[in-house]
C-alpha cells in the first residue's frame, strides 16, 4: 500500500479542514479559555461533527457509525491539531468507541455505540493514575462483591472526565501493579454513588478531570470484556489512541512551522528579513525535514493499525516517540524564532507550545515509547 492518503481520505481531510478552520480557529480555544467555559468545548460544534459522520467515524456501520479506520481517525486528529480545537473526538470517538467496539457485549454495543455516533453520548477512558503513563501500573482496586465489584482508588488525568456521560475505568481485579494479568475494564456511570469528579484546568486549556472512586458499586453487566483480561483489549485501544495523538501532533507541528516560516519572511531586523540569516534558515530546514519524516512514520503506523493491528505496536511506538520529539522541537523553535512576540499571550504560538506539552504526556511520552521499542527489540 502506498504511504499516501487515498482519494477518499484526502476528501475527508478537506472536509474536516473546512469545518474546523471555519468554526474552530485558535481564537475559538482562546475564547473558551478566557470565558472559563464550563464544558471547555462547543457542544454545538460537536453536534455538527456528529452530523458529518466524524463522531461515529470508528463506530461500525451496523451501530450507526461510518465504520472507518485508524488512517481516517488520524486525518481528523491532524486537522484538530492545526487549530488546537478542543473536542471530545479523542476520548469519545477514538478511545471509547474503539474499546466498546472491540470488547463490548452485544447489549453494551447497541446501547452505547449509536449514541456515540449521533453525538449524544460523551465517554472518557479513566486510566492513568501516576505522574507518567504506565498502563500496567494500574492499582485502582476492583474487589468482588455480590455478583459485581466495588471500585476504590483514583485516576489522575481523565481526558473529558468532567463532561463524560460514561466512564471506561481501568481497574486491577487481580495481580500486582506492574503485572499484565489482572486488569479489568468497567463501564461506570459518573453519577454513581462514590464517584467524585474534579475538573482540572490544564496548561493547554483543554479538558480533563481527576476522579476518585470510593466504594463504587458496579454489577457484572458493567464489565467491559474479560475479567482480568483487560490488558489485551486495552493495548490495541491505546495504540489506536497513540496513533491519533501522534497525528494531532503532526498537524500541530506543521501549523506552528508554517506560522514560523511566514514570520521569518515578514519580520525585518538589521535591514532584512530574519529569514535571510543562515543560522535560522538551517534550523528551519532541519525542522521541516523532521516534520516530513515524522509524518511518514505516523502514516505508516496508522496504516499498520488498519492492516495488522496486532503487529502495529512497534510502528506505533516509533510514531508516538517521533511525534513527541518533533512537536517539542517545533514549538520551541516557533517561540524562539518569534522573539519577544512569541512570549506574548496575545500571540497564538504559545497555545501550540502548551498543547504540545500535554500531547507529549498523553498515552506515553517519547521516552516511554523509545523504551518500549528497545524492549521489543530485545535490548
Amino acid at each position: 500500500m502506498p504511504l499516501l492518503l487515498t482519494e477518499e481520505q484526502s476528501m475527508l481531510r478537506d472536509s474536516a479542514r473546512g469545518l474546523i478552520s471555519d468554526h474552530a480557529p485558535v481564537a475559538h480555544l482562546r475564547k473558551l479559555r478566557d470565558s472559563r467555559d464550563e464544558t471547555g468545548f462547543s457542544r454545538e460544534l460537536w453536534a455538527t461533527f456528529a452530523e458529518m459522520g466524524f463522531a461515529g467515524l470508528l463506530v461500525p456501520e451496523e451501530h450507526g457509525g461510518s465504520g472507518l479506520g485508524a488512517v481516517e481517525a488520524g486525518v481528523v486528529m491532524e486537522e484538530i491539531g492545526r487549530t488546537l480545537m478542543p473536542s471530545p473526538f479523542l476520548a469519545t470517538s477514538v478511545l471509547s468507541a474503539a474499546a466498546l467496539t472491540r470488547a463490548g457485549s452485544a447489549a453494551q454495543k447497541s446501547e452505547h455505540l449509536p449514541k456515540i455516533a449521533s453525538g449524544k453520548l460523551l465517554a472518557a477512558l479513566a486510566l492513568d493514575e501516576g505522574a507518567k503513563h504506565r498502563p500496567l501500573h494500574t492499582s485502582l482496586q476492583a474487589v468482588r462483591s455480590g455478583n459485581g465489584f466495588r471500585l476504590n482508588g483514583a485516576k489522575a488525568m481523565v481526558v473529558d472526565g468532567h463532561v463524560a456521560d460514561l466512564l471506561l475505568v481501568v481497574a486491577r481485579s487481580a495481580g500486582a501493579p506492574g503485572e499484565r494479568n489482572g486488569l479489568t475494564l468497567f463501564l461506570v456511570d459518573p453519577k454513581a454513588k462514590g464517584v467524585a469528579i474534579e475538573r482540572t484546568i490544564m496548561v493547554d486549556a483543554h479538558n480533563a478531570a481527576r476522579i476518585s472512586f470510593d466504594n463504587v458499586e458496579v454489577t457484572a453487566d458493567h464489565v467491559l470484556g474479560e475479567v482480568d483480561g483487560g490488558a489485551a483489549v486495552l493495548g490495541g485501544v491505546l495504540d489506536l489512541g497513540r496513533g491519533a495523538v501522534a497525528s494531532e501532533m503532526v498537524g500541530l507541528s506543521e501549523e506552528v512551522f508554517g506560522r514560523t516560516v511566514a514570520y521569518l519572511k515578514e519580520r525585518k531586523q538589521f535591514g532584512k528579513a530574519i529569514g535571510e540569516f543562515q543560522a535560522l534558515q538551517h534550523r528551519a530546514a532541519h525542522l521541516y525535514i523532521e516534520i516530513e519524516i515524522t509524518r511518514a512514520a505516523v502514516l505508516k503506523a496508522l496504516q499498520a493499525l488498519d492492516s495488522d493491528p496486532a503487529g502495529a505496536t512497534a510502528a506505533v511506538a516509533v510514531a508516538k516517540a517521533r511525534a513527541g520529539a518533533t512537536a517539542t522541537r517545533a514549538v520551541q523553535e516557533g517561540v524562539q524564532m518569534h522573539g519577544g512576540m512569541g512570549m506574548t499571550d496575545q500571540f497564538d504560538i504559545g497555545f501550540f507550545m502548551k498543547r504540545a506539552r500535554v500531547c507529549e504526556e498523553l498515552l506515553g511520552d517519547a521516552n516511554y515509547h523509545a523504551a518500549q521499542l528497545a524492549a521489543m527489540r530485545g535490548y
Partner: protein
Amino acid sequence: MADLDTFRRETRAWLEANCPPEMRRPMTSDEDTFWGGRNAKFSSEPQRIWFERMRDKGWTVPHWPTEYGGGGLDGEEAKIVRQEMAAIGARAPITSFGISMLGPALLKYGTEAQKREHLPKITAGLIRWCQGYSEPNAGSDLASLQTRAESDGDDYIINGQKIWTSYANYADWIFCLVRTDPAAKKHDGISFILFDMTSKGVSTKPILLISGRSPFCETFFDNVRVPKANVVGTVNRGWDVAKYLLQHERAMISGMGERGGSRPLGQVAADSIGSDAQGRLDDALLRADIATFDVDEAALAAAAERMVDLAKAGQGHPAFSSAMKYYGTELNKRRHELLMSSGGIDALEWESERSHEGARPRAWLRTKANSIEGGTSEVMLGIVAKRILDLPGA
C-alpha cells in the same frame, strides 16, 4: 493486485533458488562489493554466480528498459524485488556509479545512440564509471569549476584538475563537468561530457583517507581529446544534467544508512556489554541513545518509502532528495558512533584478523564523509531552505 501477488511469489521463489547462501550474509569487508569494469575481479565464486544470474535476469537494474539490459519492471514490481531481496538479506549483485548516478541522467538527457552505447555496458557490469565534479576550488560551490574544454573541430581539448574522484584509479570511464564557455555566467557555461579514462593525457593520484584507505584520487587532464558527440544534453546546459544526477546520487547516499539484513544495534551492543536481569542493555544511557536512534531509523525508512510513493504519484518535490540525504547521512554517522561505543575497547583494533583489519573503526571513519560527499549537510539544508521553504536570500 493479484498480478503483483503472483509476481511477489515468483520473485521470492526465484531469489530463493538463485541467491547463493554466501550472498545473503552482511558484508564485512570492501572485497564483498563487486564493482564491475574492464578489470573486474570476483572475490569469490558465489559472488560471480550471483552477479551473472542477476545480470542474465536483467535485475542488476530491475527498472531499466530491457533493450538496455534492465529488467523492464514498473515501479511496483521493482519495489517488490527490493523488498524480497531485503527479506533474505541478499547483497546487491553489483555496486556501480553507472547504475546509481550516470544511468538516470543518460535515460533523461542522453541521445538514443548514447543510451545504446553506454547503458548495456552498465547493466552488464562491463564498464566502471567515476564522477568528475569536484575541483580543488570548486567543492560546495561546484558551479565555479574551472576545468576547461576548448573546441577543436569535432573534438574538445580538456585541461584541468578534479579532486576527490572516487575510484578514479579503477574507473574505465568518467562523467565529467567542464567549462565550455568561460565568458558566460558560472552556471551557464558548463557541459556534461563522457570520456575514457585511458585517453591520452588522463592521470590519477590516489589520496589516503582517515580510514586508512585510498578510495579517491586527484585526477589530472592534460590536453585530453574528446569527441563533441560525447556531450550529454545541450552544450553549456550541463548544469541541468549535473543537478539531475545529484538528485539520484543523494538518494543513493541517503540509503547507505539503511541497516539491511544486519542485526539490530541494541543486540550488537548487548553482545559486548551484556544485559541486566530484565534483559536490558547494561548501560542505561547507551540504551537510551540506541532506542532513540532506532526510532529515527524506522521513521526514516518510512519517509524513504513515502518519497518513492509521492514521486510515483507525481507529488514529489525534486529537492526532497536533499532533505533525505541530510537526514540519512547524519543518521548513519550516529549509527557508527553508537557502534563504536557499543564495541568499546574491542572496536579500537586497527590491524588484526580478529578485527577484520579494523573493519569497525574504518567504517566509522568512512561514514564521516557521508555528510560531505554528494553535497555537504550545510549545502543540503541551504537547498531545502531555498527550494522548499522559499526563504529569502537562501
